[in-house]
């Protein structure tokens, strides 16, 4: 690193500007967003912490390479409109990323300030500027370039698909997004809960992509309604597949089909997409249970547990077979969940689900575990303690064990190469699949990953598709 940067002119402010939050006891009673966002003054204060490093290490940490120091400098100068425009050059969904990116392992992990102090709150600033632009109605649609006379079909409207659509529409390609569900957004609408990502924000981002000229067709299950070869016959010149990794996983233990056992996908889809937390105002029901167990240790498990708490459960247990240190969930989410009253049952592994005479779940038998030697993933392998069986009394169980590839579309696409787990094989650099003119990216290629990685893959694919069609 250059010498100059070690001696910044300004005095370093060691900690991030605090962002106000709903207090835990209040927020577990509602589905409103937990962190409330920065005010203009707070944002400027935080932006001023950035020392504008010459070598801009933070950008390397961002999969879509946002010009982080530039937009932060504009915020510091109170040039909010310009800051928003700067960010949108690289990221079509900033209000989403500012909220759900794991910044601590991405942009913020590379921030120079983070070496000795807290890094600049890049995510919070990103969220601020996107919210500011939307709330002040300053969202501007770039002028549409002359049409190129070529059409691209985008399958799936998650972050990968939305990014491809936005980038190609901006270049003048005709774009149609086909989405299986009745709402666009992918996991952003059906998986991530309202209290982490308000659906009105996802809708605004989808509307923005549409305003660029992309057409959205919902209720279109590709593979059934049209196959990929049919899309080419219908006049599309290239296809992008961004269908996510939507299949639920179960443990294959006795009792898993009892009433009251949900996959995290079902539980979250009912609550988020179908708004079952507002039942009976909305028609889709969800069980309001007293004692809930969630099996798993990732972000999806945290989202399920925090949703169950908000639905009014007396006790929600998180059952995880390793210890706190091995949990893949973001530290911030674990912290939020703990504040809200989630009870952790570490080193605990379910072996059987117990039902009553009506077929409803009433308990879960578990074994205690110990940590042994590290396994292939580098995490210490949990080993069952003999004779340690015990039962947790529950009336709802949510299985949050990860997801797998949904075979519906691949099965209907002859010649599309898949790996042994059923994910689509696509070149990491150019997103090309085994079929000419067919590109793929996001969770259906990588397995469950992150919003920003899916967007990064979408960006690359858009670049390649544009090349392919020129």
């Amino acid at each position: 690193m250059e010498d100059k940067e070690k001696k910044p002119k300004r005095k370093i402010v060691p900690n991030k500007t605090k962002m106000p939050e709903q207090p835990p006891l209040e927020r577990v009673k509602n589905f409103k967003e937990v962190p409330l966002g920065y005010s203009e003054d707070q944002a400027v204060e935080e932006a001023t912490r950035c020392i504008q490093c010459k070598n801009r290490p933070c950008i390397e940490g961002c999969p879509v390479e946002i010009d982080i120091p530039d937009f932060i400098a504009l915020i510091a100068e109170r040039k909010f409109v310009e800051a928003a425009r700067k960010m949108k050059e690289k990221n079509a969904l900033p209000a989403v990323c500012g909220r759900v990116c794991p910044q601590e392992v991405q942009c913020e992990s590379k921030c120079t300030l983070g070496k000795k102090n807290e890094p600049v709150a890049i995510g919070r600033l990103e969220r601020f500027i996107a919210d500011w632009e939307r709330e002040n109605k300053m969202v501007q649609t770039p002028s549409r370039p002359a049409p190129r006379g070529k059409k691209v079909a985008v399958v799936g409207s998650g972050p990968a698909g939305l990014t491809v659509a936005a980038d190609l529409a901006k270049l003048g390609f005709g774009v149609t997004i086909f989405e299986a569900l009745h709402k666009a957004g992918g996991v952003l609408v059906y998986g991530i809960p309202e209290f982490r990502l308000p659906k009105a924000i996802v809708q605004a981002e989808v509307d923005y992509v549409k305003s660029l000229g992309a057409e959205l067709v919902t209720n279109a299950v590709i593979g059934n309604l049209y196959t990929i070869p049919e899309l080419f016959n219908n006049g599309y010149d290239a296809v992008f597949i961004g269908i996510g990794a939507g299949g639920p996983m179960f443990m294959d233990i006795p009792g898993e089909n009892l009433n009251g056992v949900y996959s995290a996908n079902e539980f979250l889809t009912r609550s988020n997409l179908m708004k079952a937390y507002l039942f009976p105002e909305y028609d889709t029901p969800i069980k309001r249970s007293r004692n809930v167990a969630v099996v798993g240790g990732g972000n999806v498990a945290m989202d399920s547990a925090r949703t169950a708490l908000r639905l009014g459960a007396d006790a929600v247990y998180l059952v995880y077979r390793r210890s706190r240190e091995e949990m893949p969930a973001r530290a911030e989410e674990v912290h939020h969940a703990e504040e809200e009253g989630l009870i952790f049952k570490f080193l605990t592994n379910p072996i059987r689900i117990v039902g009553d005479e009506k077929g409803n779940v009433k308990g879960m038998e578990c074994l205690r575990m110990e940590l042994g030697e590290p396994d292939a993933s580098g995490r210490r392998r949990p080993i069952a303690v003999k004779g340690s069986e015990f039962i947790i009394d529950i009336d709802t169980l949510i299985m949050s064990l990860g997801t797998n590839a949904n075979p519906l579309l691949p099965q209907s696409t002859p010649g599309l190469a898949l790996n042994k787990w059923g994910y689509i094989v696509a070149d990491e650099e150019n997103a090309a699949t085994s079929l000419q003119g067919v590109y793929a990216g996001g969770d259906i290629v990588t397995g469950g990953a992150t919003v920003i990685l899916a967007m990064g893959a979408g960006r690359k694919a858009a670049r390649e598709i544009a090349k392919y069609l020129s």
Partner: protein
Amino acid sequence: MFKIVEKKVLGQDIKLFKIEAPDISKKAKPGMFVIVKIGEKGERIPLTINDFDPQKGTVTIVFQEVGKTTMMLGRLKGGDVIEDLVGPLGKPTEIENFGKVVCVGGGVGTAVIYPVTRGLFQAGNQIIGIVGARNKDLLIFEEEMKDFCHRLIITTDDGSKGHHGLVTDVLKQILAEEKIDRVIAIGPTIMMKFVVKTTQPFGIPTIVSLNSIMIDATGMCGVCRVNVGNETKFACVHGPEFDGHKVDFDLLMSRLNQYKEEEKIALTTL
């Protein structure tokens, strides 16, 4: 938005809609279904495609009003629109020339088995139809079924028309008298369970269409899981038709009761 171009009342609580859905009509096959959602606050419910006309670009659904969503659907009129219609979903019926096939339809299931019967007839099978209902007012698709059955037997629980008794009575008699190559049964879960029990001793392949609760119907949520041959399957993508001899019907019935209390609450908001 999908326009209802025709509405018919077929019997007590049973209604038929012909809906404008050109793309779905082109891909529909017997045994496939659609997901219907009315309005922003509605739930997603599965209904079988009873008929499809790729020339006119329509699909037909027939449904019985059993709860809030089907009752709200029943209130729609010709010319109204349905906000969301997704399909065609599920695996189509396996259709080939099996030989002699018995098609058993119970209640509103008769509307569901109608396109299957027609498909099997057109594939050259000898068809015996058995159509059952609680009483003669609930009998539907009798005339249409006649066109595609070499023989059609009607049963009613109360004897108001045809054979007085259950579809399984008639089925048992047929199985005892002639060689049957395949049985297909679609109707209330309890009926399908007993049809399967009836054919089991004869070892005749028996196909049933499972009506589990569904949400996305694309294999994403797992709510529709059923136990077939001791394996968990998703009715929406692996089915809805399965080998009846392998189905755990008691589990299916228990799972269908999951939201009984909520369904009652929903009705109070109608």
